[in-house]
């Protein structure tokens, strides 16, 4: 019975759009060439189709619920002066445009597509090129940003804004986009209950994904490659991070994942490979790291002594130069059942768990932490010797930083 | 031919040579004798340029040998102990020396190589040779290039009597060709019939330089051993 009512309701809604809404074609070769003019002519719920072409029509404001759709990616060119699409109404869809050359400003955040204080906006299948900000949601709610390709080429951070920027928003769904060459790929500030899934974020100048005071969000199955740092989560609670890949975030002070002053997070099933530091954690608490793979990083995890209640369980550490780095001797975190490829212990009772604990912090990594120029001695004989001595007679490395139940074989992840 | 003038050399506290002046002429066969540590080997080495004197100078055919190396093509030297790179064969050592001293016109003198029977051992490596055989190689090398001066440091030490005899014959023959031969030795009996002059050294000082006839006349002894002994007991 319920099902039938639902079906009926959907049918009615579908018919009503078909019956009462009309489609307006605008653009080159049409009677109406001005896009803004077309929007002004349209009624709420109409579809405005823009034909193929190159449009230099300045700022376009969408102030009523409608679908703005491009045919064969019409180019909206801001001539480095204008913001292109300003969405100021709920229930708007922007679909299939090639939006380029927005203005740049240090006073206002000019974007390719900007959502102003509204809800239910869908930005889908667009190409954004060389804009100051790509897609900007300001106090948006229940918006979807999907399948967009966002690129910028500015080398200078101050000349480039963020690819997708959300501020004071709630329930934003960011899916399947690719973001390249911006300052931050995706930036969330005071954003809640949002999901960032399956995006490909590469070669951005600062962070691939950046959280600031953005609570109760999740991001899954994204790829962060070759950014200044992969993901930065700062001053944030309850973030869920699952099945992401953090790759090749390689450089001085580069991280796969930077966690600063965060709490109650879950980091699960992620893959960290080829980063200078896989994860850098500072001042954070109550984080569960489980079933992640750390492979070929400089430091798999750099955990500052200001962290507490971080639980590392069932992770694979393979081919990292240093497994764990830390700057103090106080350890309030737990390590359990991880696989460490540097573990040299034995398993006499054959329970697949090593009989002696593994200490993932090497003497040399402690030295470098205290005295960075000592990096000059990287891979020298003396550091190898120091590490071996420290294993026999621990003095500098934290006594309690150890995995009492290290696995003998890597987990299948 | 070789004139040393006021040559002095000090090794640490030890005065190895103290104001030594000697004159050696061609056609002479001079025995350089004296007790152990008297400076005879050092004198031979200063002539060869292996040891540079602290003061005094040495001339060879009228030319100062300091900073000179060319004059050594006229010298054949047989060291007291002959050691060679262990993995070289006798043939290679000889070839190398021929390469170093290649004088296009001069005929090499291979007599000793033949009489010592070295030509059947050409492929033997130096490390496999006995001390005596190595001495034979050293002797052959000294005579190989027909030098006008021969400096032989304890030449018969380690040689068996047959080889020793062959070497002596060779020395006499070369003396007959008008060459200057300097022999250091402490086995004085070996030197009878060979030498024409005696240089006797003690504590780095030249005690005397006399012809063998003068020595005989002075001491009334015909044998070198006895002549020297009578001087030393004086």
């Amino acid at each position, binding site marked *: 019975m319920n099902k039938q009512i639902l079906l009926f309701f959907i049918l009615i809604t579908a018919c009503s759009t078909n019956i009462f809404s009309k489609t307006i074609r605008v653009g080159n070769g049409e009677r109406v060439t001005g896009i803004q003019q077309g929007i002004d002519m349209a009624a709420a719920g109409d579809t405005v189709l823009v034909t193929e072409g190159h449009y230099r029509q300045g700022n376009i404001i969408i102030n009523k619920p409608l679908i703005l759709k491009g045919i064969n990616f019409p180019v909206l060119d801001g001539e480095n002066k204008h913001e292109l699409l300003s969405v100021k109404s709920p229930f708007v869809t922007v679909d299939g445009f090639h939006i380029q050359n927005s203005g740049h400003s240090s006073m206002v955040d000019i974007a390719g597509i900007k959502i102003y204080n509204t809800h239910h906006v869908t930005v889908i299948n667009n190409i954004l090129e060389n804009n100051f900000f790509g897609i900007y949601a300001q106090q948006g709610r229940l918006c979807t940003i999907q399948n967009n390709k966002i690129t910028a080429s500015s080398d200078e951070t101050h000349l480039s804004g963020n690819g997708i920027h959300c501020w004071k928003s709630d329930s934003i769904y960011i899916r399947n986009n690719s973001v390249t060459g911006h300052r931050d790929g995706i930036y969330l500030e005071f954003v809640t209950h949002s999901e960032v899934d399956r995006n490909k974020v590469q070669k951005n100048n600062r962070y691939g994904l950046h959280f600031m005071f953005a609570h109760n969000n999740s991001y899954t199955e994204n790829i962060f490659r070759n950014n200044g740092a992969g993901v930065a989560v700062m001053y944030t609670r309850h973030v869920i991070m699952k099945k992401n890949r953090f790759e090749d975030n*390689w*450089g*001085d*002070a*580069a991280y796969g994942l930077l966690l600063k002053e965060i709490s109650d997070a879950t980091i699960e099933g992620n893959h960290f490979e080829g980063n*200078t530091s896989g994860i850098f954690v500072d001042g954070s608490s109550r984080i569960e790291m489980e079933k992640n793979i750390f492979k070929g990083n*400089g*430091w798999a995890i750099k955990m500052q002594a200001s962290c507490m209640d971080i639980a590392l369980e069932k992770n694979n550490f393979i*081919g990292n*130069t240093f497994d764990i780095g830390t700057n103090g001797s106080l350890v309030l975190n737990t390590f359990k059942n991880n696989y460490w490829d540097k573990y040299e212990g034995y398993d006499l009772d054959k329970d697949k768990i090593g009989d002696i604990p593994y200490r993932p912090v090497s003497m040399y990594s402690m*030295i*470098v932490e*205290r*005295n*960075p*120029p*000592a*990096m*000059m*001695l*990287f*891979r*020298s*004989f*003396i550091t190898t*010797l120091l590490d071996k001595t420290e294993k026999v007679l621990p003095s500098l490395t934290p006594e309690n930083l150890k995995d009492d139940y290290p696995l003998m074989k890597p987990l299948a992840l | 031919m070789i004139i040393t003038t006021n040559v002095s*050399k000090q*090794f640490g506290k030890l005065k190895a040579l103290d104001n030594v002046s000697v004159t050696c002429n061609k056609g002479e066969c001079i025995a350089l004798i004296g007790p152990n540590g008297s400076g005879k080997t050092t004198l031979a*080495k200063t002539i*060869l*340029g*292996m*040891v*540079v004197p602290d003061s005094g100078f040495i001339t060879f055919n009228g030319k100062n040998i300091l900073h000179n*190396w*060319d*004059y*050594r*093509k006229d*010298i054949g*030297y047989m*060291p007291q*102990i*002959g*050691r*060679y*790179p*262990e*993995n*070289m064969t006798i043939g*290679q050592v000889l*070839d*190398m*020396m021929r*390469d*170093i*001293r290649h004088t296009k016109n001069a005929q090499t003198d291979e007599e000793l190589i033949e009489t010592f029977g070295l030509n059947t051992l050409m492929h033997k490596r130096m490390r496999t040779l006995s001390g005596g055989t190595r001495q034979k190689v*050293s002797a052959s*090398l000294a005579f190989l290039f027909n030098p006008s001066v021969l*400096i032989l440091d304890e030449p018969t030490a380690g040689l068996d009597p047959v080889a020793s005899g062959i070497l002596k014959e060779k020395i006499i023959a070369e003396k007959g060709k008008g060459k200057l031969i300097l022999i250091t030795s402490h086995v004085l009996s070996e030197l009878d019939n060979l030498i024409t002059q005696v240089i006797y050294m003690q504590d780095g000082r030249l005690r005397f330089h006399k012809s063998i006839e003068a020595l005989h006349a002075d001491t009334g002894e015909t044998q070198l051993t006895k002549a020297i002994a009578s001087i030393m007991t004086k």
Partner: protein
Amino acid sequence: MKKIIKYVIADILRNKIIIAYTVFLLAMSLSVFNLEDNASKGLLSLLNIILLIVPLVSIVFSTIYMYNSSEFIELLVSQPLKRRTIWLSLFSGLATALSLSFFIGAGIPILIYQPSSTGIMMLLTGLLLSVIFVAVAFLASVTTRDKAKGIGKVILLWLYFALLFDGMVLFLLFQFADYPLEKAMVGVSALNPIDLSRILILLQMDVSALMGYTGAIFRNFFGTQAGVIFAFLVLMTWFIIPLWLSLRKFNSKDL
């Protein structure tokens, strides 16, 4: 001069220790490249062999060879040859022979398995380290008459370059931890050919980013063409100066 070099090389290449050294290097490099799952990891494992074994063998072997050749050197000096010619010939012979062993033992496997810029850099520094430590051995053996003392001296020298120098650097870094020493480290690295070689090789690998700010300074300096040329000039100086000093000493030495 060429004549002596030729015979010296022929002699050394038949030496059992040199043959063993070549075979050892060959076995190590082949096993390292075959056992490691990727070749650049193999290079890292080779790094320590090159930085430790090559200097050790070069310096100890050369020293022993020089002492064993003292009578031979005397014989050569009694020949119509300049001392300079004798000394440089022996040096060239030893340096060539040891470089050749290194090239066969490590160079060829590197060229086969890892002909990258890292591999080439490793090959070049390995060759230079061979030559440098022959030169240091020459200086040590010409200044020390006693064989046992001389060998002891070169083992200490090796220990100094391979370990003690780095220990001192570490000590100084902690003593002067309050000062910005990153830039000074570039100069310090020039004081030890082993350190300089290690840094040059590491900078070719992508692990260089791991070295943080210090690494960045090294990369800015040695990453440029001028920097690499400078580094190689420094390494050249490291064999030219000991060789020149040893030659001066040998020229006036009493044998």
